[in-house]
């Protein structure tokens, strides 16, 4: 009996080696070996820490020292604190900014995808801020907004009275707008490049046809470009809005969360690293994740019902319409 099973297994392994040598097997080996490293990295640096964080959120713990299991206590605490959800209100500033950002990106992308003198240079210059690290951007804007520095003297040249200018970071009516503007400056270029990529895939014959029909630039944009890149616009919109829920770098570096600029993330950071309530901060992170998932879902549904989903090709839609009319 045992002999038989040994025989069988060796037969199996032989079969396996044979399979490995076949083209199908080789393809599989290549796929597995190429996937292995990125998957390991993804697991080690994303899913493992995430799992740990979810675990932490059920404990009353510091980084060093004993841990005590407290069940859902941390989650209840998050909802009972008044500072956490108040901080989420600041996200509206960043959401508003993300609309401005997308509009600007779309504008520049459309301009630059036609023939423009020095187009490459402009593309590079607009994309450049995205390449600077967030901390450096923070420091740039700290000096930019300092009283009597860059922005003030710039406005001074334009004839503004320095005395009447507000304190960009101190005045609590506008300091969140100042910070959101910094984030627009940084991410606009990235959106623009994505849009340019999408616009490039539009068949140029369509422009020619439109030109023959006497369409102007606005009409070309409205009826050719926008419908064909709807998918990418919707994607960018979703990314920007969910991103604005987790705004962190500008307030953390520029104002340190002072003067009413502490976003949800800044408060989370303080609770975890200064007050050593790691469990509570983890619970906050999990709750934010759920909020973001929920927001994404809502947006998806919204776009599906209002715009009949960004995923659908405009040509398909027209074809459908025509088919209907033909009936």
């Amino acid at each position, binding site marked *: 009996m045992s002999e038989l099973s040994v025989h069988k297994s060796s037969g199996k392994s032989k079969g396996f080696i044979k399979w490995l040598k076949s083209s199908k097997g080789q393809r599989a080996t290549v796929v597995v070996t190429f996937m292995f490293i990125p998957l390991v990295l993804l697991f080690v640096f994303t899913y493992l820490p995430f799992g740990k964080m979810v675990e932490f959120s059920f404990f009353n713990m510091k980084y060093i020292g004993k841990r005590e299991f407290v069940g859902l206590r941390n989650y209840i605490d998050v909802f009972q604190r008044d500072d956490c959800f108040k901080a989420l209100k600041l996200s509206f500033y960043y959401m508003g900014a993300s609309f401005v950002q997308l509009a600007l990106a779309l504008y520049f992308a459309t301009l630059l995808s036609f023939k423009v003198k020095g187009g490459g240079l402009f593309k590079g210059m607009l994309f450049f801020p995205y390449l600077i690290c967030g901390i450096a951007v923070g420091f740039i804007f700290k000096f930019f907004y*300092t*009283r009597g520095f860059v922005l003030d003297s710039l406005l001074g040249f334009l004839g503004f009275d320095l005395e009447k200018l507000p*304190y960009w*970071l101190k005045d609590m009516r506008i300091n969140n707008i100042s910070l959101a503007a910094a984030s627009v400056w940084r991410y606009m270029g990235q959106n623009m490049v994505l849009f340019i990529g999408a616009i490039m895939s539009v068949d140029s014959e369509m422009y020619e046809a439109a030109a023959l029909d006497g369409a102007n630039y606005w009409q070309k944009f409205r009826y050719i470009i926008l419908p064909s890149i709807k998918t990418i616009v919707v994607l960018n919109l979703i990314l920007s809005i969910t991103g604005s829920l987790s705004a962190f770098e500008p307030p953390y570096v520029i104002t*340190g969360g002072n003067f009413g600029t502490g976003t949800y993330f800044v408060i989370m950071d303080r609770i975890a690293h200064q007050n*050593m309530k790691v469990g509570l901060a983890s619970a906050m992170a999990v709750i934010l994740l759920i909020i973001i998932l929920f927001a994404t879902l809502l947006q998806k549904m919204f776009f599906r019902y209002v715009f009949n989903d960004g995923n659908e090709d405009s040509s398909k839609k027209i074809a459908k319409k025509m088919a209907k009319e033909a009936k």
Partner: protein
Amino acid sequence: MKLVKKVLSLGLLCILAVSLVGCGDKKKTVDTEKEQVSEKGDGADSNSSTLKTIDQIKLGEDYKDIKATIKFLTNRTDLVDTIFADYIKKFQKIYPGINIEYEAATDYFEDITIRLTTDNWGDICMIPTTIDKNELPNLFVSFGDKPSLDKEYIMLNNFSYQDKVYGIPSTGTAQGIVYNKKVFEKAGITEMPRTPDDFLAVLQKIKDNTDAIPMYSNFAANWTMTAWDAYIGGSATGDPDFMNNGLVHGKNPFSKRDDMTGPYAVYYVLYEATARGLIEDDPTTTDWEGCKGMINNGEIGTMVLGSWAVTQMQEAGENGDDIGYMPFPITINGKQYATAGPDYNYGININSSEENKIASMLYIKWLTEESNFAYDQGGIPIKVGAEYPDVLSAFDGVDLVIDNPAAPGEETFFNDINNESEIGLNVDNYHVSQVLEHALTGDMTLDEIVADWNAKWSKAQEKFGIKVR
């Protein structure tokens, strides 16, 4: 396009290769470390009990042929390439076999807390204040018994637990106020202020009579706001038991006292100075590196910082002699006091190999006794009987108050309450920054702010069942 692709793939290849090489290297060092440990393990116990305590070691006589490479984590990014490099050279004249690698971090405080959760963060670090006392034996090597070390060094209270010392201070600081003598002269100030209201009057005079900023808050740097907490103990009460016992067991410890002492008086200075417009125009855009030159040139009147700051301000320009130091303006029964305490403490990794532990101990002893580090930095030397730097001459007649340790069994109480209440004395700038913010916007009085703190503090005391006296 093809060229770009080629270049890209070449770049990727390089990155991969480098990261692979990096991995290999790390493994190697780990292996050698393990070997060392196992070699040692054959002979005597590799337990820390065989280690000589720091007071028994004789520099230049013991362990002359020891060979080790130790890693030193530090917060002083500004000194690594200059002063510390020089120290290594000097130290290696006595111990040529010991190699020291410094690693400095700008965001040291947050970094180190997380890194300490692993075993192999290095050999020596500056112990952060976030560590609870009962965790010290699990993380750091003991330098010796407290009673015997007390004869050699001062300020050992902060990182001692159950009569063992786990941290040796790098330098001590006295808490006072940095000021510019010329600005004071120009403003017509002849007498040093001794009470909060005197001090505010002085600031007002500076504002009226000179162009200087009376008090520079350094608000934007955040940690400079945390520095205000250093004054609420010794400087504000004259009581060495206040921080670890008075605050822990105190009923509403932040409330106003009739004689204008205690924590309230300290924050009162900040609140009133801000409300009366005696600080800089826009606190959100202050510049820490820039302020050093400004006070040196007489553009700033005063700054509330520990004595460690004085040397830096003096060296920031040509008018070093103009920089003076004075005690915090609070008078208790006719006498002035100043909080004195250790700066960061050195700690040695309990998981390091035996050689590295010994080498670390030797280097720390050398730093404390031979390097003159504390004196050169304008701090209080830790070695008993060492000479005090000139900066502190302004403190003649002022009693230096060093905090007493907490009562036995209550070592963790202060951290417990401090974290639970989320006030974060000496840890977090948030509560101090709030004082300035509310003073500026005028939406909360100082009494309302401290009432809020008292409520949080009391709630935390109650949670841990701490007796309130």
